[in-house]
């Protein structure tokens, strides 16, 4: 690897295409040298490259002059740039020569990328045959995006409660048993009253609103009856008609027997 032999004498034949690995021109050689020294195109150390470039040329015992002239011209060019740079650090002409060299190297490299791409298309192209021979199908009609899946930890509940407690510092919570008196010992559940009203209307037909309250034994029963009427109206089980003094109550015979 340290002293590879470059068959520059074969460059002519390369043009006809049988030894692709060889250097086709001076830029290839420079690119190779940059690569060997792990140097980016933009930071060419001209002295180093020039020395190595000349060293390779010297290794050539014999050269096809017609081809070698290209390499020798490049050597002269590199030497020219080097000289200018040695003479002055601020030499604009040398700098522009350098830029031109860099541009050519980049162009050369781009060409290489393009060559690689062309090689790759030869491999990728046939792979596309698969796509030309298959068919996919349309989805079956389907409702989408309706179910939400949650992934929570039981501890999230504890955290949520803590959050609420922190926030409601001032607010004492009424325990649910505070409702016990009302809920469990209600003598006239609205539910039952509602059933009673529906049965009465189904059996006896239309009646006067006030008649519903006849026979009520307590304030609590009156309230339950009134609540039941309101609930039944809301649920559209019964209908109220008329005015303040002659209000009647009616029920659809097909109405459900209970409120819920």
């Amino acid at each position, binding site marked *: 690897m340290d002293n590879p032999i470059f068959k520059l004498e074969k460059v002519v034949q390369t043009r006809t295409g049988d030894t692709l690995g060889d250097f086709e021109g001076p830029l290839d050689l420079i690119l190779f040298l940059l690569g060997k020294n792990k140097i980016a195109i933009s930071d060419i150390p001209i002295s180093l490259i020039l020395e190595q470039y000349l060293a390779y040329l010297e290794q050539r015992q014999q050269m096809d002059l017609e081809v070698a002239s290209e390499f020798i011209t490049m050597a002269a060019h590199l030497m020219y740039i080097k000289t200018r740079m040695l003479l002055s650090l601020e030499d604009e002409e040398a700098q522009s020569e350098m830029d031109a060299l860099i541009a050519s190297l980049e162009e050369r490299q781009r060409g290489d990328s393009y060559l690689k791409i062309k090689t790759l298309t030869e491999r990728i192209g046939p792979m596309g045959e698969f796509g030309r021979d298959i068919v996919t199908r349309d989805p079956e009609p389907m409702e989408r995006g309706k179910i939400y899946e*949650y992934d929570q930890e039981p501890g999230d509940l*504890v955290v949520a409660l803590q*959050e609420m407690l922190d926030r409601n510092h001032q607010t004492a919570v009424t325990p649910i048993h505070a409702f016990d008196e009302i*809920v469990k010992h209600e003598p006239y559940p609205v539910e039952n009253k509602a059933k009673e009203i529906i049965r009465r209307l189904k059996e006896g037909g239309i009646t006067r609103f006030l008649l519903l309250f006849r026979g009520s034994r307590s304030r609590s029963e009156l309230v339950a009856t009134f609540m039941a009427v309101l609930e039944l109206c809301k649920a559209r089980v019964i209908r109220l008609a008329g005015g303040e003094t002659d209000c009647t109550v009616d029920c659809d015979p097909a109405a459900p027997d209970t409120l819920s």
Partner: protein
Amino acid sequence: MDTMEMKDMESAIEGILFASGEPVAIDRICLAMELDKPTAEALLQKLGDCYAYERRGVRLVRMEDSYQLCSAPEYGERIRKAFEIRKMAKLSQPALEVLTIIAYYQPTTRAYVDQIRGVDSSYTVGLLLERHLIEECGRLQVPGRPRLYRTTQNFLRSFHLNSLEELPEMPGLEADGQLRLGDDGAVLDMEEPRA
């Protein structure tokens, strides 16, 4: 036609049926496969039997002189689920709060949830109902007959719980599931005498 050819023919027909989302007329299959109708029908029969016998994810359905592939109904629930699932979502803080109250106090009303949270929870309750994390379970027998809510199976699954008994123990929750708060809002451990 030997077995190999038969198998290939069957597969080609499978390909044709697969590619079409709609029913395919048998004439069309005959034309494309250069087969007579009885042979095509025999192959289709074989294909359909194979799907059914091997309990595949697809079925062959015949409608008059047309054939169509469709997804197997026995996997319908799985299939629907695959398309209905939106994503692994996390519940918002308000949703978690409402859910916590309902989980520990169930069955309970929205008024009670509002009371504990100190804000109106009607939107959040609606959301939890829609996401099947809570459900209605009757009404409370008080004026206004408010709806009662409880948590669902889906709630247990979402929180990786096997039953409500596995709910984490809450600080300040007594055996009867009631929360005790002192005048300063601190959680009390001891049961207070009833008024």
